[in-house]
C-alpha cells in the first residue's frame, strides 16, 4: 500500500503536535511536575542552542561567551518586572515598573541583539581560537559586571541577585498560577510549558527560514571560505554582525523567559560553564543542523536530571549505599559522553547532510 508522502508528512506533523500538547500531562502524571519543570528548561536550552547555532553552526564563528546574552535578557526582564528598581531608586521609580511580557521580551531580544553586535564589532577580523578567547572574555565581563553593579548605584543587586520577579502574564493570568480550563486544573508549570513551546516553535521557524535564504547561504559561505565570500560580493562585516545580533536575540528571549520562570536571577546562573554547555549542545547534536541542535539541547538538558533521578536508587540496589555523589557523577558522565560522541561521531549525533560529507571528504584526503 502506498501513502501519499504529502499526506504522510501532514500526519506526522499532527502526531507530533498532539504528542507535544499532551506531553506535560503525561510526564506530570507519571513522574511528577518537577519533570515538567525540567522539560521547560529543556525548551529554554533549545532556544539558546539554536541562537548559538546561527553564530557557530552557520557562520562558523566560535563564541564562548554566548550566555552573556541570556544574562542580558534575564536581567532586563528582572529589572522591568520586579520591585528592585523601585527599592533601589525610590526617587526615580515610584512603583515597580511591572512591564507586560509582550513588551519586555521583544525589548530583551533587541537589547541582547545590540549587545551581540557590540561584541561582534571588535571581533570581525578574528577567527577560530582568537575569536573564542575574545568572546570568552566578553561573557566574563558581563557576568562580573552583574556581580559588581550594586555599587555605587545598586542596579543589579550584585551577587545576591534580583528576586520577586513577576511571572509572565498572558490575558491577565500569571503563568505561575494554576488555571482552570474546561473543568481541568492546569498547573503553572504546564502553562509555562505551552508558552515556552510556542516561542521555541517560533525560534525554530525563524531558523529554518533564515537557513534557506540568501543570508543563510552567506553565513555558510563565510564559514567555508571568507576570502571567496568577499570576492563574491558578500559584505562579510554586515553579515557577520547580523549573525551575532540575531543569535544574541534568541538568547535574550530565552533569558527573559528564564527570569519570569524562576522569579529570581543572580550572576551565578551565567557562568562560563553555561556557555560551554550550550556550545556542547550545538556541537554534540550536529553543528549547523537545526534538528541535530534540538536533539543535542534536549539530551544534554535531560541527561543530568535523569542521572540525578536514577543514580542514587541504582547505587543503593547495587552497593547498598551511595558511593558517588550524583552531582560529581553527572560531570563525569557528561565528559565521557562528549569524548565518545566526538570520537565516533565527530560531526555530531545528527549532522547536517553537508557537514557529514565535508568531514568524510576530509577523511579521504587525510
Amino acid at each position, binding site marked *: 500500500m502506498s501513502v501519499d508522502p504529502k499526506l504522510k508528512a501532514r500526519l506526522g506533523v499532527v502526531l507530533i503536535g498532539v504528542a507535544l500538547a499532551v506531553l506535560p500531562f503525561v510526564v506530570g502524571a507519571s513522574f511528577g511536575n518537577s519533570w515538567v519543570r525540567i522539560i521547560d528548561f529543556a525548551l529554554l536550552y533549545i532556544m539558546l542552542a539554536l541562537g548559538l547555532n546561527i553564530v557557530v553552526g552557520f557562520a562558523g564563528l566560535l563564541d564562548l561567551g554566548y550566555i552573556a546574552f541570556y544574562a542580558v535578557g534575564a536581567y532586563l526582564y528582572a529589572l522591568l518586572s520586579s520591585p528592585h528598581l523601585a527599592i533601589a531608586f525610590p526617587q526615580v521609580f515610584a512603583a515597580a515598573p511591572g512591564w507586560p511580557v509582550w513588551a519586555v521580551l521583544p525589548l530583551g531580544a533587541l537589547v541582547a541583539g545590540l549587545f551581540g553586535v557590540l561584541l561582534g564589532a571588535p571581533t570581525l577580523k578574528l577567527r577560530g581560537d582568537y575569536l573564542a578567547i575574545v568572546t570568552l572574555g566578553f561573557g566574563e565581563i558581563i557576568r562580573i559586571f552583574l556581580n559588581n553593579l550594586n555599587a555605587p548605584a545598586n542596579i543589579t543587586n550584585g551577587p545576591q541577585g534580583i528576586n520577586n520577579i513577576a511571572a509572565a502574564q498572558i490575558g491577565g493570568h500569571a503563568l505561575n498560577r494554576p488555571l482552570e480550563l474546561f473543568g481541568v486544573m492546569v498547573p503553572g508549570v504546564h502553562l509555562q510549558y505551552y508558552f515556552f513551546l510556542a516561542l521555541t516553535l517560533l525560534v525554530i521557524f525563524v531558523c529554518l527560514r*533564515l537557513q534557506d535564504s540568501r543570508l543563510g547561504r552567506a553565513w555558510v559561505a563565510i564559514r567555508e571560505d571568507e576570502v571567496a565570500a568577499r570576492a563574491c560580493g558578500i559584505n562579510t562585516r554586515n553579515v557577520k554582525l547580523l549573525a551575532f545580533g540575531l543569535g544574541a536575540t534568541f538568547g535574550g528571549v530565552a533569558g527573559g523567559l528564564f527570569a519570569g520562570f524562576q522569579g529570581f536571577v543572580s550572576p551565578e546562573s551565567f557562568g562560563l560553564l553555561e556557555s560551554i554547555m550550550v556550545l556542547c549542545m550545538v556541537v554534540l547534536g550536529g553543528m549547523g543542523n537545526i534538528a541535530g541542535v534540538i536533539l543535542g539541547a534536549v539530551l544534554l538538558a535531560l541527561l543530568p536530571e535523569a542521572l540525578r533521578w536514577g543514580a542514587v536508587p541504582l547505587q543503593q540496589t547495587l552497593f547498598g549505599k551511595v558511593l558517588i555523589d550524583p552531582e560529581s557523577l553527572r560531570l563525569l558522565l557528561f565528559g565521557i559522553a562528549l569524548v565518545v560522541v566526538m570520537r565516533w561521531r565527530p560531526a555530531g549525533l545528527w549532522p547536517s547532510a553537508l557537514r557529514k560529507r565535508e568531514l568524510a571528504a576530509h577523511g579521504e584526503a587525510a
Partner: protein
Amino acid sequence: MSTPLLEASGISKRFGGVQALRDVSLAIRAGEVYGLIGPNGAGKTSFFNVLTGLYSADQGEVRFNGQPLPLGVPHRIAGVGIARTFQNIRLFGAMSALENVMVGRHIRLRTGVLGAILRTPAARREEADTEARAHALLRYVGIDRLANQQATHLSYGDQRRLEIARALATEPKLLALDEPAAGMNATETAGLRALIEKLRGDGLTVLLIEHDVKLVMGLCDRVAVLDYGEKIAEDVPDVVRRDPRVIAAYLGTEAVDA
C-alpha cells in the same frame, strides 16, 4: 578610441621589503581578452588582488567604467562588476555546486532578514529566480548535471568551471581569471579555452593571468608582461613574443645576447 573599461594608473604595492608592484599602469578595453603574464613572483596575483579589492594599493588608482574603483573593499568591487576566480580554487566546499553559484548572486539580491523569515512574495520570486539563473549558469559552463553534487567532490576541471560560474553569477563586466589552466591536462585546457572564447563571444571582457604561454598567446587580444613588479611590455601577442625584454625576463639575458 573609446575609453577603456578598466584603467589602472601608477599602482604600487609594497610588502615589507618587497616591492610587489612598481608603478603599474595598464588599460583593458571592453570586449577583449587581456592577458597578464610574467615569471613566478612577478606580481601578477598581487595586481589581481589589488584590482579585486583584497589588497589596498599604496599608490595609484583604478578607474572602472570611468568611475574610481573602491580599492580595498572587495564586495563593492564585485558590485560594480569585477568578478574573479582564484589561483588555488576557493569554492564553498560543503555546499552543492548549485548553492555555490547561488551565493554568487548574493550582491544582486535584496531579501533581508524580515523578507527571509516571512518569505514574502518578493523574496519567494527572488529565490526562484536565483535558482533558475544558477542552473542556467551551470549549463553555460557545462556542469548542470552536477548541480546537486557537493563542490569538493567535483573533478578539478569541473571545480574550475564552477568557480567561473560562481563569478559569472555576480553579473560582472570584467571577469578576472587567476591561472585557470593551472594543473589542467590538455583536454581540460582545450575545454577552458573554448569556454573563454564563448565568454568573449558573448561580449564579456576577460582578464587572464596564465602561465601557459601558448594558451595566452593563442587566446588573448593583448598581453601585458610583468617582471619584478614592473610592466615591461604591453601589446598584441605577436609583438610581445618578440620583445627582447620579455625574452630576457623569461629566459635570462644570455638568451638575448646569443
